[in-house]
């Protein structure tokens, strides 16, 4: 039991480290990221019980690094939401997961706009969403392409990490 828990904590720490690493590695390319795909792969391999804590730790570290703001509240919700989506959708293969990743990228700005809606009203939320559409398009298309090519290799790589 104790060993199982230690293994679980180790996987959560590993996932958090990977999320931070891929985030920093691609910081130079705005809206091209591997965080979405990593979370999808982690959820498929290790389940939501371990992936959600990793997402929350990732959000906390991002807050310490970049400071607390509206976007940090978004991070605490949007990544666990992705875990939930991945868990609930019975997808198999690279293309369906690439579509999930792509739709998630396209909807990222709209999701953030919900927070703007709560804080600044409908007009501000719509303006926020429309202003960010070019970035959402890049995000969605990049997510789709990245997942299409890397989903299978990453799932294969995850097999080297025991999930029990």
């Amino acid at each position: 039991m104790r060993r199982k828990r230690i293994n679980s904590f180790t996987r959560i720490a590993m996932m958090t480290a990977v999320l931070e690493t891929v985030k920093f590695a691609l910081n130079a390319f705005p809206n091209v990221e591997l965080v979405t795909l990593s979370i999808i792969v982690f959820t498929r391999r290790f389940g939501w019980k371990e992936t959600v804590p990793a997402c929350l730790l990732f959000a906390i570290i991002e807050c310490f690094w970049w400071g607390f703001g509206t976007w940090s509240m978004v991070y605490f919700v949007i990544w666990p939401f992705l875990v939930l989506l991945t868990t609930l959708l019975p997808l198999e293969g690279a293309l369906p997961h690439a579509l999930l990743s792509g739709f998630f990228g396209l909807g990222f700005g709209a999701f953030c706009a919900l927070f703007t809606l709560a804080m600044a009203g409908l007009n501000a939320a719509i303006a926020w969403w429309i202003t960010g559409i070019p970035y959402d398009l890049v995000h969605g298309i990049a997510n789709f392409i990245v997942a299409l090519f890397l989903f299978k290799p990453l799932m294969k790589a995850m097999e080297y990490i025991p999930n029990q």
Partner: protein
Amino acid sequence: MKNQNKKTWIAVVVGLLVVAAMYFVWSTNRPATSAGAKSVTVEVKDSEGTVSSYEVHTDSEYLIDVLNEAAASTEFSFEAIDSEYGPYITAVNGETADFSVNQAYWAIYVNGNYGEYGADQQPVNDGDVFQLAYERS
């Protein structure tokens, strides 16, 4: 399996339609700009509240290009990093605003009003006054 494939390709088509719809919404709502010779003012309000002013004559359509022109032709200087939502101004005239240290940031005001767009999407019109103000939340 065949049913799964069908759903996947429907999702592909829906995805393409969503991309097209988003582009349509953006292209019909994006802020209008005017090309041609324009005279604009770039102001910097530092952390002490001191305001410096720079006149720029430009053909640029967006603020980020005006800032680059001001940096090339006057004593104005700025630094920006690429963020998920466009350039994020980190330092102006050598003064850095670090949100992670003291919740400080460089705000953009357009003709006295808080800017609605990032520097790369803020339209430039003749006579505009852009102010970069050091602020803390």
